[in-house]
């Protein structure tokens, strides 16, 4: 069974509410308030960040697909438990 030893913190960038504040600043910066002094470098940086976020998300979704039960429909249908307690 393969379990990576260390948590990969990258995902927080687009997922988490904990980083919510930072993320907001980032995305706000992207849409409206990039002032002229920020110029090209800033835009590039944001574009790069955007791509990174997209990659992280793609990688998560891919990992879900890898681990996801292949025959979801059958599995869910057959997942019948007896009542407990």
């Amino acid at each position, binding site marked *: *069974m*393969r*379990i*990576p030893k260390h*948590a*990969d*913190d*990258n*995902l*927080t960038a687009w*997922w*988490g*509410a*904990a980083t*919510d504040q930072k993320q907001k600043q980032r995305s706000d910066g992207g849409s409206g308030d990039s002032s002229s002094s920020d110029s090209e470098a800033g835009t590039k940086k944001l574009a790069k960040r955007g791509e990174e976020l997209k990659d992280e*998300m*793609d990688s*998560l*979704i891919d*990992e*879900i697909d890898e*681990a*996801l*039960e292949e025959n*979801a*429909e059958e*599995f*869910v*249908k*057959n*997942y*019948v*438990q*007896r*009542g*407990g*307690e």
Partner: protein
Amino acid sequence: MQKRIYGVETEYGIIFTPDGRKTLPVEKAIRFLFEKLITTEHFLNVFLENGARFYQDTGCHPEYATPECASPRDLVIYDRAGERILEELQLYAEEKIREERVSGKLSIFKNNTDFVGNSYGCHENYLVDRDVDFYYLAEQLIPFLVTRQIFTGAGKVFQTQDGIHYCISQRAQHIYQKISGTTTNDRSIINTRDEPHADREKYRRLHVIVGDSNMSEYTNFVKIATCALVLQMIEDNFINRDFTLRHPVKAIKDISYDTTCKRKLRLENGREYSPLEIQREYCEMAKKYVEQAAVSDQLRQGLTEWDHILNCLEEDPDKLDRKIDWIIKRKLLEKYIAQRNLSWHDPRVFMIDLQYHDIRRDRGFFHLLERKGAVDRMFTDAEIEKAKTEPPQDTRARMRGDFIKLARQNNIQYDLDWSNIRLGNLLNVRVICNNPFETDTEKVTELVRTIQRTNLRRTSLSKLVIQS
């Protein structure tokens, strides 16, 4: 009670999916799970070195009961240690299944429902003073327990006649009573089973069976800490508001369907409050309470988180997408659905809902998010690993855990329950410990020493009882 004993029993869902014609009954899969736990106790019902109990419950579910814990923090750590113990046993069972030349997959889920309407539970136990009027306590606690799901629910995709719903709680739809004595039929919010596993004159057990099993450490911690805090307020007669609900059982289901958490409920006195408002009222009372009462640091921490959670739920529940199970899972589903362009009816949606709870860390989606750093943790892997074999040091579980280790090293026959240790070849020596706060392991060590000296295997001791 300022010092309290806590315990949680978690029932797991289990299924074997054959990959071919040859299959394996789930009873057999469970036998394989237990096979690795070599013991002199009854098969399918054993105590572990960490003081916990592991057994097969009604309906063929593996069930893990934490050892007695003296704090919410320990309780969550020992509950998680149980997941890991079971995961190890699962890997062993999978090997045995392969040896049987059956091909397929064994899956174990820490959730509370299947898709056809069966439920299995997650039971919280709180030790309470015998002096407190139990029915008064239960009535006071019920409005809190009914509404707390807005931050303790594990989330569930439900298909009903009018379509697909994302519900807050797994368990809500399976509750039919306020208070009752049975757990399998007519499941209630609070169960009256009164097995304190302690001095009955002094204590009774509060058995809360309405909760969902939690994957998130944070959700689990807040669930236990807030409940303990409200309990302490009730015991101290601090609650001066009446939130008795007109239809508590209906309210539980209605709240579960309302992910805004803001729809109003009718109280017995005719007023209307949303679940969020009721929680807010309890939380504000608790803030006043801790100013003047002796309250443990952990319960205070629980209060801080509780306040934060309610603020987030008021503004935007998605702010809790790293902390609260039902919100974490919903976000995962939304992301997946958007990315793969699915409808909520897609079987993959139901599968993700289920697989969020898979205890195998290489398969479970909660574990995937945890690995990615997408959910908040409160404890370290080292703490959880330690709790797999080391009992809590500040409760009776310490004696039990240490005894099990000693007995195994010395090949001594034994049999246990929560407040008794029986040993000897005729199990004729008995140590009773009716005080769950007792931690003195010297007594147990001394007992084992005596036994080694007298060579128990040959001598039949007259009935020896050591009262503690």
